[in-house]
């Protein structure tokens, strides 16, 4: 592959942010097909349109996911990227690596692909960007035999689950997000690698309501840490915040003078449920009124910590807008224990209730959140064998069109119109 002139892309080598163009050129010295990535991209910059098309049957034998077929629509002009498939490698929970593992991955990809990657894709997988069909089986063999790694999900499969950093380096994680993510990924290897569902299905695990992995916005089954008991308060540390000895919000606002810290204005006054107050020098919180939004804890991390009776809230059915519009996940189980000791059987039980139902009644290309919209939340609650509670809604319904069931009404639905007519002339 010859070097390409890229006058438009060269403009993206300027400026303070790291340049992917510079990086691609660096890679092209070892991997000349990168010149064809640059060449085709330069043409897209000139034409203002993509030059890729997709094709549906590439994969490794026996897997229905993990590889996405991709072809240039100008294969003669750009032979280096004529066939240029994507490989999704399932990432380790919360994306820690050692350099031995990373170097092995780099060597594998130098041998079998373009050398370009995404660290990481939106769902969480480590994405290897660009190879030909004849490399897929050898790469998969070496990935599994030598690197002891596996592919991630794509298509109508379980997608690679993802989690926040959790207990590895966060003081707020209310359950072991990494263990849950890894445990359920291992438990559902078949669903991850082979299609099982009407459409994609995603699990995500966030350790607290800050939801750093965006579970509530983008996972079909969102597990988000929470707690039941009192926020733990270190009153001496509260005083240190009031005296300005500790920076507010862990130093997040250090670049600007916002004036001296004001606990009334910045913490108590912003509490959405107004459940906090000062009694002399003591900060008080009425736990029964608290909705665990994390604001006070975020502002004063050295003084306040989540409680010790911890677990998770499960919300179901989030998705991006396509097709029916975006949805956040709906609160389904307010509090559940997430226990590595039981191998997460509490979560597994709930997941399989959803799957057994959705596999049967979900339409093709319908996310579970859309299925729930279609049948209604009350129907879904019955499937999940859950008692209706006010926590499941923001507010009660405002229309009276209840779908009454026959057994809810004395005497049922069958009546005799002739009996009715005896008392009511036509």
């Amino acid at each position, binding site marked *: 592959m010859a070097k390409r002139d890229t006058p438009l892309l060269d403009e993206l080598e300027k400026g303070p942010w790291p340049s992917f163009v510079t990086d691609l050129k660096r890679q092209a010295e070892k991997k000349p097909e990168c010149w064809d990535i640059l060449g085709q991209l330069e043409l897209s910059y000139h034409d203002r349109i993509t030059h890729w098309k*997709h*094709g*549906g*049957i590439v*994969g490794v034998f*026996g*897997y*229905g*996911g993990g590889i*996405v*077929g991709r*072809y240039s629509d100008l*294969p003669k002009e750009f032979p280096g990227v004529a*066939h240029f498939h994507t490989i999704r490698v399932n990432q380790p929970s919360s994306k820690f690596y050692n350099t031995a593992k990373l170097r092995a991955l780099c060597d594998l990809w130098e041998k079998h692909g373009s050398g370009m990657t995404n660290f990481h894709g939106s769902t969480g997988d480590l994405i290897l960007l660009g190879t030909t*069909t004849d490399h897929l089986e050898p790469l998969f063999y070496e990935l599994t035999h030598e690197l002891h790694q596996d592919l991630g999900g*794509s*298509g*109508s*499969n379980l997608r690679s689950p993802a989690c926040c950093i959790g207990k590895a380096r966060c003081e707020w994680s209310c359950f072991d997000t990494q263990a849950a993510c890894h445990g359920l990924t291992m438990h559902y290897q*078949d669903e991850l690698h*082979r*299609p*099982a*569902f*009407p*459409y*994609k299905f995603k699990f995500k695990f966030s350790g607290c309501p800050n939801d750093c992995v965006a579970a509530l916005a983008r996972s079909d089954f969102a597990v988000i840490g929470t707690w039941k008991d009192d926020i733990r308060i270190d009153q001496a540390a509260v005083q240190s915040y009031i005296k300005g000895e500790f920076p507010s919000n862990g130093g997040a606002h250090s670049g600007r003078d916002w004036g001296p810290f004001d606990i009334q204005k910045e913490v108590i006054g912003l509490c959405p449920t107004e459940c906090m107050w000062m009694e002399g020098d003591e900060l008080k919180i009425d736990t029964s009124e608290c909705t665990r939004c994390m604001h006070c804890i975020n502002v004063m991390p050295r003084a306040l910590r989540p409680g010790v009776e911890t677990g998770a809230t499960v919300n179901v059915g989030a998705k991006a807008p396509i097709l029916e519009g975006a949805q956040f996940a709906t609160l389904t189980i307010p509090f559940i224990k997430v226990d590595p000791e039981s191998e997460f059987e509490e979560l597994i039980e709930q997941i399989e209730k959803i*799957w*057994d139902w959705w*596999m*049967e009644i979900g*339409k*093709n*290309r319908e996310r579970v959140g859309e299925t729930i919209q279609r049948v209604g939340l009350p129907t879904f609650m019955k499937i999940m064998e859950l008692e209706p509670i006010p926590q499941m809604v923001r507010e009660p319904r405002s229309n009276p069109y209840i779908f009454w069931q026959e057994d809810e009404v004395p005497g049922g639905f069958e009546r005799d119109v002739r009996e009715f007519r005896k008392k009511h002339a036509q």
Partner: protein
Amino acid sequence: MALSTEDLKLAIIEKATKSPKPQLYIKDFYKCDPDSKPRVIKNVANELVREGELMFWSSGSTTMYARPDRIKNEETREDAEEHKDD
């Protein structure tokens, strides 16, 4: 009563062979045996892929099944077109 695994395999192969659509969703196979649970049918369909009777077709976001001889292959199609030019 639910079909035996062998009978279910035959029914799925027949459906995939005779359906006017070469590519089928997993849900299309549910009709092969209304008495079998979706999960059972899914497992049997995936076993047929391992046996080479079916293969996967994926748009990236959706995965479908097809008989290998009924599916359009981007790479062989290109080759054929190139030979046509010769």
